[in-house]
């Protein structure tokens, strides 16, 4: 036991005197967490929260343009700009300012859109009614149908495709709504019963959003709830870099050979490192939680709430820490120099983070990457955090992920020990 305590103390002393290592382990992840969450909040605000200005070239000046103006006003997400510098907005001007990047979007409504829609609907209704021969003597088809109309959307080339799709769908919905109303009104007119509202304009089908959760309480995933556990995991896995460097140094400065010639088993030597770095991983995790809970509100972000699950969250952090330690020991054992271990460890961590869903959620990845993400230990940790924070999972629910993480630690550690043994058998 005295040997183990001495090993743990030595590791903590070495870490405490490694300024660069401390910055990598504790400071950088916190900066990353704050920066990424602020950036994500900013981008959400620009699309959904803050009023983004959108140009509207209104050549229609009819019911449709009015409906679009009312629709955007009701949603409160976008502000329509219909004139620039006091002058009337034309399609050419709108196109130019969007191209310059001054605006992200310009909507151009064609002339007589509302009138032609009305004519188009009337033509169709007449065609239908004449086919049924309703009072054929009184009905006359409305001649040649009007030409198809086109609403032009000019986007800044830098606009994200998801935003384009959202805008297109919103306008489509507004136009469809008007089209439906026009159809109903035309039928009523043609049937000579305009005063009696035979067709209900009320929506028959509506949407109700329900976020499924086991305990009945709804916990909405937010940038904060994603970022705090995700970046805490990223920080924990960055242990790979200083730990692998530490092992390479032990080899290059001869201390590992000194230990190998002492009566201390190699396993105990590694156990000392494991416990010391497991403590580090928990400290990292708690620091990230503190940043989320107490610093975020001062930065205008939602505070992170552990929802009384600190114990289970700590268990996930600890098992993730063990997985990272196993990987760090393996990288350090296989690498011969710091020049090999540091970039390899860092790149491996970033790749595992990207694949594991730290950067972007797994569900929006291509199918092949979704399958690959299941192989990333960071994905196991993140899933366990989501289970607890969003699905009200208990220890039993996250046990599979915890077992996987500990298994990963065991496998990587075993490979490292076997590799080291084989290397010594010269």
């Amino acid at each position, binding site marked *: 036991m005295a040997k183990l305590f001495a*090993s743990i103390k*030595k590791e903590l002393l070495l870490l405490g005197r490694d300024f660069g290592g401390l910055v990598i382990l504790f400071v950088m992840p916190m900066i990353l967490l704050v920066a990424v969450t602020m950036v994500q909040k900013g981008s959400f605000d620009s699309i959904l929260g803050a009023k983004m200005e959108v140009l509207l070239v209104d050549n229609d000046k009819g019911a449709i343009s009015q409906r679009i103006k009312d629709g955007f006003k009701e949603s409160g997400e976008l502000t329509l700009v219909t004139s620039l510098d006091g002058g009337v907005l034309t399609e050419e001007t709108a196109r130019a300012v969007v191209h310059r990047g001054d605006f992200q979007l310009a909507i151009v409504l064609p002339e007589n859109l509302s009138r032609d829609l009305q004519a188009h609907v009337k033509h169709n209704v007449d065609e239908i009614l004449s086919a049924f021969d309703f009072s054929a003597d009184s009905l006359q088809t409305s001649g040649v149908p009007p030409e198809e109309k086109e609403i032009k959307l000019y986007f800044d080339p830098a606009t994200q495709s998801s935003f384009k799709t959202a805008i297109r769908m919103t306008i489509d919905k507004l136009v469809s709504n008007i089209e439906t109303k026009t159809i109903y009104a035309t039928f009523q007119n043609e049937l000579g019963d305009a005063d009696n509202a035979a067709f209900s304009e009320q929506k028959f089908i509506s949407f109700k959003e329900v976020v499924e959760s086991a305990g009945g309480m709804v916990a909405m995933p937010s940038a904060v709830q994603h970022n705090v556990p995700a970046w805490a995991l990223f920080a924990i896995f960055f242990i790979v870099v200083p730990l692998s460097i530490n092992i390479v140094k032990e080899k290059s400065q001869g201390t590992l050979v*000194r230990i190998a*010639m002492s*009566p201390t088993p190699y396993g105990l030597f590694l156990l000392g490192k494991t416990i010391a770095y497991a403590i580090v991983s928990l400290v990292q995790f708690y620091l990230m939680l503190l940043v989320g809970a107490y610093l975020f509100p001062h930065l205008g972000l939602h505070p992170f709430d552990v929802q009384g699950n600190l114990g289970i969250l700590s268990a996930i952090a600890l098992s993730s820490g063990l997985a990272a330690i196993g990987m760090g020991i393996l990288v350090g054992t296989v690498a011969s120099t710091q020049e090999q271990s540091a970039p390899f460890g860092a790149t491996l961590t970033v790749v595992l983070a990207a694949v594991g869903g730290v950067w972007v959620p797994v569900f929006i990845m291509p199918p092949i990457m979704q399958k690959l993400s299941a192989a990333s230990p960071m994905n196991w940790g993140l899933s366990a955090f989501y289970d607890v924070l969003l699905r009200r999972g208990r220890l039993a629910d996250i046990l599979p992920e915890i077992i996987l993480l500990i298994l990963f630690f065991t496998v990587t550690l075993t490979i490292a020990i076997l590799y080291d043994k084989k290397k010594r058998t010269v």
Partner: protein
Amino acid sequence: MNRTVIHIENLSKRYRDDERWAVANLGLAIEEGEIFGLLGPNGAGKTTLISMLCGLIKPTAGLVSILGLTYRTCGSKIRSAIGVVPQDFAFYPSLTAEENLRYFGSMYGLKGRQLDENVRQGLERLGLDSYGKKRVDTFSGGMKRRVNLLAGVLHKPAVLFLDEPTVGVDLHSKQAIMDYLRNLNKEGTTIVYTSHHLPEAQEFCSRVGIIESGQLWRTGSPDDLIASVHGARNLEDVFLYVTGKGYRDG
């Protein structure tokens, strides 16, 4: 007659992917209380032999027993009883001298008051008592060499393996190190010493063996070896007689 503490019988080592035998059918017995100098040019097999004696690498054939024990059955007991001082510094530069010594002492099973006492005494005897709380990376070469030595002898080993213990140090540090080692030997530690510094070996060792191409040429006291070679005035002459004057870079 003293008891044999190191017994080597038909010891051979051939590395993987190497056709040459690094150590070939070597036999040797070192008795308790001896200071045995293992001398030889680069690539002669000294490091391989010491590595096998320390249990770092396994022999291809033959037997090594230390204090009557073999690594196969009593590796941990042997490792507790031996001390190793490598030529290259082997400590943590960012830790203080005391922290380094306390750590390595603990790894040899020292604890509590015994550990405190051995660290204090070691630092004092090697003139480092006022530097115990200073980081080793701030030390001079001679001071580092002394810390390197202390880390290997803190547990007062029965057998000590020394590889070039005074290389690159000033006269004062060299004197302190050699005095300390002589005292250690007087207290009962058997010393196996390798060096290229032959005058030092001639003065320090009670017996020497010259190794060449993995085989032990001859063992004996420095005076006996000098007398055995016609015209030799010192160990350097004997060494050159055995190993020739060509470069040994391989």
